[in-house]
């Protein structure tokens, strides 16, 4: 399928996963990601090696992912905020056991049961752990239906490359809205699978586990994983710049919010305000270095996100006091208008 088709973001993720060779999916119903399991049920249940299983809970679904990932199969689960909270125990085990998989979070308004409208208030949960212990997810933040598909394919490659869980962090708007998308089957590299638990024929035991009772041994293991994270931080930071070259003011914004911000920047430019956008595509690893470099050139930095101020903490760490860092956010499922963001940009001047 290389022609342009109209698809919902949730469905685009589903088709992209299949094209990337993921024929195994475990999930549990929750809005606003429901189109994704429905799409995969329709497709996978008709495929010879397709596995679609609606689990009894989010907890069970992520543990099914853990089991399948341990056998070297490309596997995915998806959910939305409260469901991701339930999955975090399993995500910690998966990260600690260094298993590749893709986890989709179509973020909704919270905390608590919240609502089903778009939000970005799971940023801390996605990038700072969420589950227990020292670990990291690679977190990709799409801003269009096309990117929902592209980043899903990229996510499987990154997961296999680094033996690490990857999260696709969308939101209720990206999941639900339809846009034209081009879906192209990617080349799939052959990855080293000498670690998988698929029957020890002709070899000794392979073991998937995350228990090291001796603290010194566990510390050594965590250091090994963090050496891997360091390589990811060096190689995999992704971001997009818009009108940054001559900018006096830099806005940092990601996902659906960055699209609103782009329009606000166009409006501000018409009023003569030199403002640019830096859009993190990987929110972990975060584009710290480039933001730090801009902090040497611009007068002010502002973070705009759909939360009470989560990503802004990473922006402040990157800017490290060089210039003031302002924040504008709407939360709990409310999206700002372009004029609202424009008004905040005008306050910077």
């Amino acid at each position, binding site marked *: 399928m290389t022609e342009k088709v109209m698809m919902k973001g949730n469905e685009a993720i589903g088709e992209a996963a299949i094209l990337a060779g993921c024929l195994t999916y475990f999930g549990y119903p929750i809005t606003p990601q429901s189109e994704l399991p429905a799409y995969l049920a329709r497709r996978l249940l008709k495929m010879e090696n397709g596995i679609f*299983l609606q689990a009894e809970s989010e*907890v069970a679904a992520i543990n099914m992912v853990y089991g399948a990932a341990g*056998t070297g199969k490309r596997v995915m689960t998806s959910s939305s905020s409260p469901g991701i909270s339930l999955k975090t125990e*399993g995500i910690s085990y998966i990260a600690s056991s260094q298993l590749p998989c893709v986890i989709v979070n179509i973020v909704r308004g919270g905390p608590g049961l919240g609502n089903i409208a778009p939000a970005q208030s799971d940023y801390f949960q996605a990038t700072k752990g969420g589950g227990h212990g020292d670990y990291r997810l690679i977190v990709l933040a799409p801003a269009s239906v096309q990117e929902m598909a592209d980043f899903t394919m990229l996510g499987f490659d990154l997961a296999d490359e680094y033996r690490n869980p990857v999260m696709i962090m969308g939101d209720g708007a990206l999941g639900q809205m339809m846009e034209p998308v081009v879906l192209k089957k990617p080349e799939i590299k052959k990855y080293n699978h000498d670690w998988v638990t698929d029957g*020890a024929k002709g070899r000794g035991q392979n073991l998937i586990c995350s228990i090291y009772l001796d603290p010194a041994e566990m510390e050594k293991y965590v250091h090994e994983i963090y050496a891997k994270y360091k390589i990811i931080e060096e190689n995999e930071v992704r971001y997009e710049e818009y009108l940054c070259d001559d900018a006096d003011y830099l806005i940092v914004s990601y996902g659906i919010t960055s699209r609103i911000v782009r329009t606000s920047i166009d409006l501000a430019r018409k009023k003569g305000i030199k403002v640019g956008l830096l859009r993190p595509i990987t929110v972990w690893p975060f584009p710290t270095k480039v933001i730090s470099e801009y902090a040497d050139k611009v007068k002010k930095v502002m973070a705009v996100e759909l939360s009470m101020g989560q990503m802004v903490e990473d922006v402040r760490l990157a800017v490290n006091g060089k210039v003031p860092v302002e924040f504008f956010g709407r939360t709990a499922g409310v999206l700002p208008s372009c004029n609202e963001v424009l008004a905040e940009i005008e306050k910077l001047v």
Partner: protein
Amino acid sequence: MEKLVFDKPKCMTERPLHYCPGCSHGIVHRIVGELIDEMDLRDKTVGVAPVGCGVFAYWYFDFDFSQAPHGRAPAVATGIKRPNPDLFVFTYQGDGDLAAIGTAEIIHAANRSEDITVIFINNAIYGMTGGQMAPTTLVGQKTTTSPYGRDPETMGKPIRVCEMLSTLEGTTYAERVHVGDPKGVIATKKALKKAFEVQVNKKGFSIVEILSTCPTNWGMTAVDSLGWMKDNMIPYFPLGVYKDKTKEGDA
């Protein structure tokens, strides 16, 4: 020339067991090892270890293992087996793991008739965490969290897992046995063999509940604990086959 009359199963490692003296895990591990050898399953087996005293079960076998979060072994086993239907997958779970925190996972794995085998060690107590009340702790039994004995008014009565799971259409085979004497050990091996065969023949979900001892947390000698298990547990948890769909001809 010396003749070898007794040896450890080939698929078991040289590592000394970490279990307490008188604990039943060693007996059950050996039966599992013997059957994996006899049924020639080693090259396609993936065991799923629980949280509990059996967490290190993978130390004692030389085939593949995955260590599951507490109670989630049936979900992990589902994830291993579904995309790899030719693997032989078993979970090894205790009573806290299976019948408390993992209640949802065991019921739904059984109900979907996952082609996995569950080896369920019921010793009426939490072992690894230090002797707390389990869902299978007997009425009146003293544990660190039921210090005056399990009070059924406030703590409920022990859960009979085989009986509960046998009500589900998906359960193909469910049997309760014990390892309190040689006869019981022989019956346990026979039950596990049957359960393994159910999976090898792709007939669905099988579970063997094995009444076991925990002398350390019961505060007894190894010998006394065998007697206590038989005198107190078997009357409440009757032995026998609770479900056998292979006989009903519909599995």
